[in-house]
């Protein structure tokens, strides 16, 4: 009996050690015998942009632990295909067998991190252009790619940007602009607009898994593509494009718009250092402006599109009113548009409807 208590104590110490190493990344489902789920990430010095795989690793020990190695399984994975995942799991299983009779929980987690670090690269083809993600184009230059943070699906940066632009502005087809359609069984279905071709502004969905992503998820790609236009030339698969075409490309126009709004914002916040203009000195010219608009900064994170309207000359109170009052206005507008729908379509089995029908108009407000 004393031996059993001692063994239990040892397992408890082990669990403490795991908790100490992994902190919030470990979830203990059961103490004795231990059952835990560890969030394992590759070692990329916390640079999330360099992370292409991750795994929630389940370790479930029996009452015979550590004599009997625990059951190892994958709870959830991102960026790992079947092959790499099964290789990872079987490697950890054999490590566990190797370590039978010894406390092994921390070691197993470390092993998983080690293997995952070696697997930290995307595999396969870009789902959009179907050419290899990691590879060279005809000129021998490397095509940059990126991943969506929500699902770790990877695309060539240029390919996903094209999709993003298509979602935001793409449907140039006039039939889309006619009117909304009302689903009589559900009333106005606001949720549907985020999923299909007419997506809310600043939202997109992953072409592979349809997980919704935000504008901020691909913002860094704007930056990347903006870094050098010569690089952009190599990004496009249209290798024959001349520079003029390039400067009129959708990516370039988006980049310009974005930089311009950034510039305006900086100007409004007096954050821009410009060469002095020929201005006559006027009374009150150097009066300090109201304290920095921290509310506006918060609003910026939530609503990146609206903060350009927030001027620093407003007081904090006004700034707040501004951002909060904008939202209901927008949604009210959307609802009105829907109410204008001229076509009403009866249909047979309202309960059965599985897919959303075409939504008109929502992406063009």
């Amino acid at each position: 009996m004393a031996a059993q208590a001692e063994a239990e104590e040892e397992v408890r110490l082990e669990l403490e050690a795991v908790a100490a190493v992994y902190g919030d990344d470990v979830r203990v489902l059961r103490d004795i015998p231990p059952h835990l789920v560890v969030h394992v990430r590759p070692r990329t010095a916390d640079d999330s942009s360099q992370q292409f795989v991750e795994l929630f690793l389940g370790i479930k020990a029996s009452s015979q632990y550590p004599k009997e190695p625990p059951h190892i399984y994958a709870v959830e994975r991102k960026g790992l295909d079947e092959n790499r995942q099964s290789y990872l799991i079987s490697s950890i299983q054999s490590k566990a067998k190797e370590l039978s009779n010894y406390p092994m929980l921390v070691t197993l987690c470390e092993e998983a991190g080690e293997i995952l670090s070696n697997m930290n690269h995307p595999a396969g083809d870009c789902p959009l252009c179907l050419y290899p993600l990691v590879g060279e184009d005809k000129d021998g230059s490397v095509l940059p790619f990126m991943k969506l943070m929500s699902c770790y699906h990877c695309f060539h940066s240029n390919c996903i940007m094209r999709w993003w632009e298509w979602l935001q502005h793409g449907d140039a087809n006039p039939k889309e602009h006619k009117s909304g359609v009302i689903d009589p069984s559900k009333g106005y279905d606001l949720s549907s607009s985020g999923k299909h071709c007419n997506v809310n502004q600043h939202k997109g969905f992953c072409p592979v898994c349809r997980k919704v992503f935000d504008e901020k998820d691909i913002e860094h790609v704007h930056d990347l593509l903006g870094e050098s236009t010569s690089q952009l030339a190599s990004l496009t698969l249209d290798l024959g494009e001349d520079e003029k075409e390039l400067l009129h490309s959708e990516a370039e126009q988006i980049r310009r718009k974005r930089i311009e709004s950034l510039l305006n914002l900086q100007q409004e916040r007096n954050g821009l250092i410009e060469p002095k203009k020929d201005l006559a000195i006027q009374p009150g010219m150097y009066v300090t402006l109201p304290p920095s608009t921290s509310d506006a900064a918060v609003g910026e994170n939530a609503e990146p599109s609206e903060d350009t309207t927030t001027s620093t000359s407003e007081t904090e109170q006004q700034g707040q009113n501004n951002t909060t009052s904008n939202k209901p206005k927008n949604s009210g507008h959307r609802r009105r548009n829907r109410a204008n729908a001229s076509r009403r379509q009866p249909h047979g089995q309202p309960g059965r409807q599985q897919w959303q029908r075409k939504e008109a108009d929502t992406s063009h407000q």
Partner: protein
Amino acid sequence: MTSSSPSSSSPSRKALSKIACSRLQKELSEWQVNPPAGFKHRVTDNLQRWVIDVAGAPGTLYTGETYQLQVDFPEHYPMEAPQVIFLHPAPMHPHIYSNGHICLDILYDSWSPAMTVSSVCISILSMLSSSPAKQRPADNDRYVRNCCNGRSPKETRWWFHDDKV
């Protein structure tokens, strides 16, 4: 399944963009290496219109029958869905109209640029294979009457509420 009448006229057919061309060439070469089971691409020099023979799957209502799919690619493929119809005679199916139009969500609202001709073909064959009866959609006559002059099914406002077939 219901459909409303098509609205507005077809947009004029534009040549494929370079991106669309590049992607289609890639799809074609992959198809040639590894075609989806039961499908045969008819070789032409037209990249923008594929005609594909579909063989009814063994053990289904369509065993031994062959149909033809016509796939037309828009300028901005794959951002925009291809137009997929059955050439005459279209198979008798509760989601396939006698003019060849197919009521299948992935061809319209649920299209995603990560889909390929090959994956679309497999979806269509799966839809055929799960058919309980060889019959036309309930609103076939009304729909086909409204689709005169070879309108595209992409002009139709589709309603999808049957997840069984």
